């Protein structure tokens, strides 16, 4: 129970920070809208539903990357990471809380992005919404973990996309499959499996990322 309370307190801190500073979410919203407009001009003719679905997922992935890149920046700038690591709580709680906060930003961005997509391109079905929900879990779990790794390196923001994109390819496969297939069950199950597998790996190994 104390673990969940720790996670809640840490996640609340991030959400509160965002609410006061408004650093990440407006940037993500503006980015995803701009990407949609770019896609319109990058797709000659009248793109089919298949094509725009693919581009929707590229937009979601890159928007998520934008948010993930910011996730640990406040900790670095304010030098709060040492304090968090010294706090009397399990280290994995830091990862879980950060993932939840990032998930909240990403979901908020998508609540705007999906209707916008429907307005600009094609309607959004139930399978896409389900796939978005499942893919978000995986993106935030893995992305936050890698964000914590990238932020301590010299290359910093440059490194996160390089670390993250190869690991995100299975997410893209599952998500696009679920969005376009007639029977999305298999793809959704694959996404759920990915989420569970990588959540366990991240949860178990976060300790080593923040401590020596």
């Amino acid at each position: 129970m104390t673990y969940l309370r720790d996670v809640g307190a840490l996640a609340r801190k991030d959400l509160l920070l965002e609410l006061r500073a408004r650093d990440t979410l407006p940037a993500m919203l503006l980015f995803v809208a701009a990407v949609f407009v770019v896609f319109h001009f990058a797709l000659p003719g009248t793109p089919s539903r298949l094509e725009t679905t693919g581009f929707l997922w590229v937009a979601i992935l890159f928007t998520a990357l934008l948010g993930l890149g910011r996730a640990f920046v406040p900790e670095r700038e304010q030098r709060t990471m040492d304090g968090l690591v010294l706090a009397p709580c399990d280290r994995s709680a830091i990862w879980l809380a950060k993932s939840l906060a990032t998930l909240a930003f990403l979901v908020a961005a998508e609540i705007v992005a999906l209707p916008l997509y429907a307005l600009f391109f094609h309607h959004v079905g139930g399978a896409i919404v389900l796939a978005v929900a499942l893919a978000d879990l995986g993106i935030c779990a893995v992305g936050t973990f890698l964000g914590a790794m990238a932020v301590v390196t010299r290359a910093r923001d440059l490194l996160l996309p390089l670390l993250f994109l190869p690991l995100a390819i299975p997410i893209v496969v599952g998500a696009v499959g679920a969005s376009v297939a007639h029977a999305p069950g298999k793809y959704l199950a694959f996404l759920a499996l990915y989420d569970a597998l990588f959540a366990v790996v991240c949860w178990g190994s976060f300790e080593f990322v923040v401590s020596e």
Partner: protein
Amino acid sequence: MSAAAATIGSVLSLRRIPLSVLALASFVFVTTALVFVFYVAPNDANQGFSQRIFYFHVSIAFTAYACFVFGAWKAFRHLWKRDPRADLESYVCVHQGTIFGAMVLLTGSIWAKISWGHWWVWSEDELVLFLILYLFYCAYFMLRFSLDPGPQRANLSAVYALFGVVLIPVSFAAIRLAKEFLHPRVFTLSGPRFGGWILVTYCVAQAAMLVLAYTLYRVEIAGKRLDLRLRELRDVMA
């Protein structure tokens, strides 16, 4: 009983084989493999002479997997037992795996050009998987060289190397799944009948690649250790 097992283990330990013996062994094995592949193995009925690159392609791919898995095992040893040698060994394993991975892409690309007339085909699962793994492990080097030597670099590298072995089966499943919506038509290649000289040739080529990889691993480890020692000595002198 356990003491006897430990003695046998230390006598049979690969670490004790001198480098010169390993170098000679890999020369002999690779030469034998070349002889088998070009002179002993029969021509493939469908694809003729060019199919022979497969003996190398498949055995190099298996060797690369072995390197990645071994690297992850060493990474696990680093995180779990704090084995002081494990970090360097894990890095060298991944390095060798990446070199062999590049060879997989190269041989696969040549084979694709001969078979289908294109340097790259997305329908070949193994090739696509190696492209993903190649990108992943290149990022491993970016990560490692973006950190100062020390426990933090060792930890982050180890964790990322462990992610790699999780990614291999997941990516493989993903590529299989993706085929269903990327390439709806299903074509089955009736695989070559495995047996006789084909099997022997493959086994020889596989052994040659494994011995070669281990030799290269040992050479690189020796070089890196020497480098470290030299740096330590310089620090002492300064």
